[in-house]
């Protein structure tokens, strides 16, 4: 069962290489991603068996795939994202579209692998494999400065993951049977100092991926220059790899070293949140604005996880999912605007509410979710996370809290510039609404409000993970 999360995207991706017709390729990709989604929904609500076969007997590494609440929530997010992205951008024109779609599906397979792997070497494998297709996607189909920017992104994350590789090698050498399984890693025989070293090696990789201030410099550029469907994958799902890594590996493996670094990391995260929020206010490019806003949100989740407080971690677990949905919605709107108006500058937009009221309403809906208004899904997570930060230190919570105000400023500013005011030239020239994309947005918005009003299913889903984490 679990292996099909890898097989469906990979096999479809290979088939896609040979489908030269754009519409057929697009339909195939959507069908495959919907199949994965169906599977993910099934897996979310059912008990799923572990998939385990021998892989590298000499190294004692096994091909083990496993799910718990944390993995399920991210699998579900990945599975929702892909069809949403594919349907919303089905009309977009790309040269060699079949290869574009194929690479997207390869990315999905890589991401699924990261979230499913229960063997460190396998985890590392997928961690890298998720990156390679993205490298090609951004460099071939991205914006003007794509090659240099994507390369920076690639080198950054590649270097980070090499540090993680050393960490894996180091831990592996200290396990009883030189195993790579997560259980063996937890029981690795390390002295306190060695644990700090290993912690640092892993943390660098995750910190770059999230990214934490001051390692974030690759991100806004990469988001801006990537083709928007790829930006969606990057910011809705791929950044979660860093947070997932912390929850799955860092926290269970080195609880003591983890606690010892609470203050430093929380401080850096809060600095990053404020820094990103202030920059977001100054942005005119809608993609850059969402990019910085996303850095701020991820920073908050990271700070919350590092408090080590149960309530904050619970919030972060939910927010992993909610943030993905919200940011996906915003990106889809940004993509529609860019495709239909030909610009990303908010100066040149305005009056969307008069021209395409439905899209404007949807924009307002996701904007509210972005500033975590009550009734939206983000409120639940952020409330819990701030709660945890407050228990840790009221001052930190206060400083981080400023970001809520800042988020309101830049988000509402965006809504005002895009939706209201006189109809601008570019908006006026917009063609008929993209029905398929709007349908996707409506479904996403429904998820936003349903999980905002009734988040209990998400709590139930993540209960087992939370319990395990708190047992440390």
């Amino acid at each position, binding site marked *: 069962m679990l292996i099909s999360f890898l097989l469906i995207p990979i096999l479809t991706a290979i088939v896609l290489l040979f489908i030269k017709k754009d519409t057929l390729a697009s339909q195939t990709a959507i069908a495959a991603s919907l199949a994965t989604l169906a599977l993910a929904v099934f897996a979310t609500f059912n008990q799923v068996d572990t998939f385990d076969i021998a892989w*590298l*007997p*000499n*190294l004692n590494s096994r091909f083990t795939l496993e799910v718990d609440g944390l993995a399920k929530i991210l699998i579900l997010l990945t599975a929702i994202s892909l069809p949403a992205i594919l349907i919303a951008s089905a009309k977009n024109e790309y040269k060699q579209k079949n290869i574009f779609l194929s690479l997207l599906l390869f990315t999905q397979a890589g991401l699924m692998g990261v979230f499913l792997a229960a063997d460190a070497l396998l985890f*590392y*494998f997928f961690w*890298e*494999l998720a990156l*390679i297709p993205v490298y*090609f996607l951004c*460099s*071939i189909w991205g914006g003007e400065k*794509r*090659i240099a920017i994507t*390369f920076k992104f*690639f*080198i950054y994350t*590649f*270097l980070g993951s*090499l*540090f993680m*590789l*050393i960490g894996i*090698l*180091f831990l*592996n*050498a200290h396990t009883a049977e030189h195993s790579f399984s997560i259980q063996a890693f937890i029981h690795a025989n390390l002295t306190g100092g060695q644990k700090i*070293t290993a912690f640092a090696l892993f943390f660098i990789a995750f910190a770059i991926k999230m990214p934490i201030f001051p390692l974030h410099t690759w991100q806004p550029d990469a988001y801006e220059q990537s083709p928007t469907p790829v930006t969606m994958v990057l910011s809705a799902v791929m950044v979660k790899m860093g947070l997932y890594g912390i929850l799955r590996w860092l926290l269970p493996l080195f609880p003591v070293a983890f606690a010892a670094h609470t203050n430093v990391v929380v401080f850096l995260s809060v600095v990053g949140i404020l820094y990103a929020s202030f920059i977001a206010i100054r942005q005119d490019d809608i993609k850059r604005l969402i990019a910085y806003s996303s850095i701020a949100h991820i920073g908050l989740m990271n700070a919350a996880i590092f408090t080590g407080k149960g309530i904050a971690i619970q919030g972060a677990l939910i927010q992993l999912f909610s943030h993905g949905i919200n940011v996906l919605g915003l990106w889809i709107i940004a993509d529609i605007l860019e495709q239909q108006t030909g610009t990303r500058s908010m100066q040149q937009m305005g009056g969307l509410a008069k021209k395409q009221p439905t899209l404007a309403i949807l924009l307002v809906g996701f904007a509210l979710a972005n500033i975590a208004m009550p009734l939206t899904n983000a409120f639940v997570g952020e409330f819990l996370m701030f709660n945890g930060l407050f228990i840790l230190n009221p001052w930190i919570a206060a400083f981080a809290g400023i970001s809520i105000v800042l988020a309101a400023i830049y988000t509402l500013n965006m809504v005002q510039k895009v939706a209201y005011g006189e109809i601008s030239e570019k908006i006026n020239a917009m063609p008929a609404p993209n029905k398929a994309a709007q349908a996707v947005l409506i479904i996403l918005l429904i998820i936003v409000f349903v999980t905002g009003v009734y988040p209990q299913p998400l709590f139930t889903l993540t209960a087992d993970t939370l319990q395990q984490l708190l047992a440390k």
Partner: protein
Amino acid sequence: MNAIIVSTLLGVIMMFCSWGIKSQKTQHTIALVGLFVLILSNLAQLNGWYVIDFDTKGMLAFTRYGLYINTLFFLITFIYIWLNGEEIAKFDNQAADFYALFFFILCGASILTSFDNLLMLFIGIEILSIPLYILTGADKKNLFSNEAALKYFLMGSFSTGILLLGITFIYGATGSFHLVEPILRPSDGLPQEQMILSAGLLLVFAAMNFKVSAAPFHFWTPDVYDGAPTVFTSFMATIVKAAGFIAFITIFNSQAKALGYTWILVLSFVIISTLLVGNIVAVFQRSVKRMLAYSSIAQAGFMLFALYGKSSFAQEGIILYSVVYSLATIGIFGVLIKMKENSFEAFNGLAKTKPLLAFVTTIFLFSLAGIPLTGGFFAKYYMLNSLYAAGAGLWLIIIAILFAAVSVFYYFKLVQAMYFTSGEPSMHEVPKKYTYTLLLIAILLLILGAFPSVVFNYLYF
């Protein structure tokens, strides 16, 4: 033993082939058949059947490990000759001469995998090197090729002199040429003898570094690799280098103890400077061929890890690394041969005009850079693991991976040229068969990327 005898015979046969047989195709076929016979004879010895069996008085020791490596070398040479037959024929209408030289090189390589005596080491290295000097100068009308050959010959002879001096010192200190466990422990013997022994070992170390092009003895490498005809550079950078490494490891696995702590110090210095020189200089190259020359220095830096200490990781890792590195290098040089010029710009837009060729080139580059799902990843992983298992500090491993990240810079420059820059690649005609052979190499690398143990599983049963 079989391999040494059969390869010599085949070399002589190939030499005389050029008299009777004029067709290049036939000569190529004879060479391939010869290689096949060579592989069979070596496999026969692995199973205990000898062509001739006599007592070598401890000069040679045939271990399963050495014989198995022979087999791999021969297989890679087979792929190499299969791929490059046409290219070799271009230089002269007497390609058979070149094939003869290859067989002599293989003879030298088989001695290097089985020597148990420093004299045999010397003979092996010489048999390996002399044909190489000739191959470097094979492009007789090209000044660069001549220059490279002369340089290589002079420097090579000089380093052989150093090797001999080292062997003499060792003999002077211990009275033996044999490679038994530490010839002299630091506490034994007179301090004077100890000093002579250390000096001898360090001289041997320097000479071996020269042969495997490790810094600071690498200066000949870029010029020779660049000047030599690309098709022979490809052979020089792969089989020959790997054979040199096997010899290097055989000597110092048993002798390093005599050097005590100095060994770790000297080796760490060589490793770091090799990684530094190879990787940093490669970044600034404008010619792909020179970039590959420096990259081969950088790769040697990684292979040196196997010297750090004896462990199963080092033993398996060096095999895996040699195979993966050789395949990828033969592949990438195979693509380069078909280019009209060696600049990065020549690759511009290759993905558009020849997608399959661009794809295989990408696999080769990924493998050299050590990206997962290609053999290069596990090769590097085994090497790092062997370093850690041998008790090296984490700092050395961190330095190594920092340079691995640097290597991505220059390997990906080619990927960028092929995929993201538009242009018209200036290429010679690439036959279908040629592309498919390259694809086969790429598939082998991918298989090794998922199941690396297929290479060394046969070591054990």
